[in-house]
């Protein structure tokens, strides 16, 4: 009995348990509402289906959230990702729109490289402000969040740049090996980041900087360099997401690209079990969080709920997931439940965990 309970507690206590439960519940609700929801079919060598759509649409969010996880792991936050995505997309689209042959692969590669380069510069700017000058991350990146939008509009001269480029469009809606190209990119970046951080010491170094930057420095880690690096990586991820978003619609709107993506990304990271205080990060959790957010949005559309009210649902889900994960809330709940069952032994230990 007690081992069963302990094992159940181990499963429900896992940081991904509740987000996964919510994700599965959402998918089930969709499947009940529309039985064809779960079916995936192969047409012309490409996979189609609602599930594939959800993953494809969440690809930009996954990318942004991956970079955000690393930033949050160092105890920082990056509010500028949406603006960086808009700038990168605007630069790439502007370059393509000025070329005579928009369908040439070379042009698209140059455009992507240009956008990427600008994004790296913006990331370096954030990194210098945070790691070099020592400004609080939330403020340092707020600067670029406000000014970056202006910059994106300045690049596009206030217009929406529309392009007609086949190769660029592939980034958003193309296919590779039966899968949508966007999913392949998101998967590749996820694997790359995971291997770099979890198969080398880099991940642990990032976490140690987040735990205590000064102690890490004294232990021989170049804290500043690591902090600088995560902001550059975050901007790079945001840039790829920006290419995807602009490629999806073959146009760049400085005002609309990546609007609120920073909030969704932070949400995805937090739902995935990474604490905003830093010192830990869970890439798997982040991906689950991003999928959960996109599933929520898609369900609202699929179930014919007024899309405008989707924000209400989002608010409720955010609060529920955050409450369930909050240690203080859990401790309260657990204490109340366990008092009548076993009044003697566990209560004492658990009461100590309740923060004042």
């Amino acid at each position, binding site marked *: 009995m007690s081992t069963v309970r302990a094992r159940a507690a181990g499963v429900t206590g896992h940081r991904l348990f509740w987000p996964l439960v919510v994700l599965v519940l959402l998918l089930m609700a969709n499947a009940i509402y529309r039985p064809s929801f779960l079916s995936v079919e192969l047409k012309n060598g490409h996979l189609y289906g609602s599930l594939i759509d959800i993953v494809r649409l969440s690809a930009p969010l996954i990318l942004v959230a991956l970079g955000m996880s690393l930033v949050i792991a160092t105890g920082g*936050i990056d509010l500028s990702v949406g603006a960086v995505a808009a700038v990168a997309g605007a630069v790439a689209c502007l370059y393509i729109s000025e070329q005579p042959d928009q369908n040439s692969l070379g042009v698209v590669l140059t455009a992507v490289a240009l956008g990427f380069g600008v994004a790296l510069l913006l990331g370096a700017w954030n990194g210098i*402000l945070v790691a070099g*000058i*020592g*400004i*609080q991350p*939330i*403020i*340092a990146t*707020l*600067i*670029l*969040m*406000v*000014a*970056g*939008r*202006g*910059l994106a*509009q*300045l690049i596009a001269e*206030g217009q929406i740049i529309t392009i007609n480029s086949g190769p660029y469009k592939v980034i958003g809606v193309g296919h590779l090996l039966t899968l949508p190209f966007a999913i392949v990119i998101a998967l590749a970046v996820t694997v790359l980041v995971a291997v770099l951080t979890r198969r080398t010491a880099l991940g642990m170094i990032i976490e140690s900087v987040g735990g205590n930057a000064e102690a890490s420095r004294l232990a021989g880690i170049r804290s500043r360099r690591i902090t600088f690096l995560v902001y550059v990586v975050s901007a790079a991820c945001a840039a790829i997401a920006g290419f995807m978003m602009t490629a999806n619609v073959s146009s760049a709107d*400085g005002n609309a690209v990546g609007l609120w993506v920073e*909030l969704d990304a*932070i*949400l995805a990271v*937090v739902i995935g079990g990474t604490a*905003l*205080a830093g010192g830990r990060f869970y890439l798997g959790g982040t991906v689950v969080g991003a999928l959960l957010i996109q599933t929520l949005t898609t369900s609202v559309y699929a179930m014919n709920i*007024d899309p*405008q*009210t*989707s*924000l*209400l*649902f*989002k*608010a*409720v889900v*955010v*609060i529920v997931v*955050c*409450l369930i994960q*909050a*240690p*203080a*809330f859990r401790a309260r709940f657990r204490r109340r439940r366990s008092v009548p069952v076993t009044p003697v032994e566990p209560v004492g230990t658990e009461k100590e965990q309740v*923060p*004042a």
Partner: protein
Amino acid sequence: MTTTPLAARPGRAWWRVPPRHVPVLATAALLLVMYSIGVSQYRAFSNIQVVFNVFIDNGFLLVVAVGMTFVILTGGIDLSVGSVVAMTAMVSASLLGNGLHPAVVLVIALLIGPVLGFAMGCVIHFFDIQPFIVTLAGMFFARGVCTWISTTSIPITDGFWTSTAQHRIHLGENFVSVGALIAVAVVAVAAAVLAYTRLGRNVYAIGGNQQSALLMGLPVGRTKIAVYTISGLCSAIGGILLSFYTLSGAPLIAVGMELDVIAAVVIGGTLLTGGSGYIFGTLLGVLVLSIIQTLITFDGTLNSWWTKIVIGGLLFVFILLQRLVGIRTK
């Protein structure tokens, strides 16, 4: 910090201002410079009505920024303000459309914001979740309520609302609106509360060091919940002022306003880590933002996105300034 100036006082020159005043003074200087640039460049700028218009056009921003100052002084942040402003305006417009008495509508509209703020404050304090996340959820919630009420703009035709909105209080040859006066009154009350009441001192103490405040026996939880309630109340007042100003409730109005508000508070010299800042600084910060907009409108050739770039640049300069001042006091 308090002991060294005391020891150094005899040798200190009279013009050395306390470091905590430097950001506010810098903002004031910037405001003066920008105003003189405006006056020297454009003839119509010297009209005193330009100054009054700044208050008329940005009264709601000013009120919301005052609420945000309280929250930021405790070291928190409130991302929900823009949505709460929109929600208040929407609720007022829709209730007035249903023929409710304006006084009842006013009371209901003024209650919604503080209730939401109180709820967010409770979640932040009792469940120990970061203010950033909680107020983010509050932002989604309030915006969701807006679009749930209506997806299109609702005009306000109520007699009380329109007459208040169009009423001009004449001061000599110029005039101000009722909204602008309310905004100035809110600033005065908030400044007094922050400077002279127990609540105000508690806010500074918690922002300085929450742990110390707790050990000193200050009511940390109560104060934290109170600041989010105050911010909600200010957002509600801001929403009413906005509905006076636009005479309608629109679901997508005031999107991104929280950034302008935070920028105004930071430019006004309030430290985002909490514990240091003044309502007067926030007033100056809002004025700086509005003068930038006025200058860009007067110029006519500059596009609106320059506003964002200039605000971003100013944020950078002021944060750098705070940083330098901070280094000097250490």
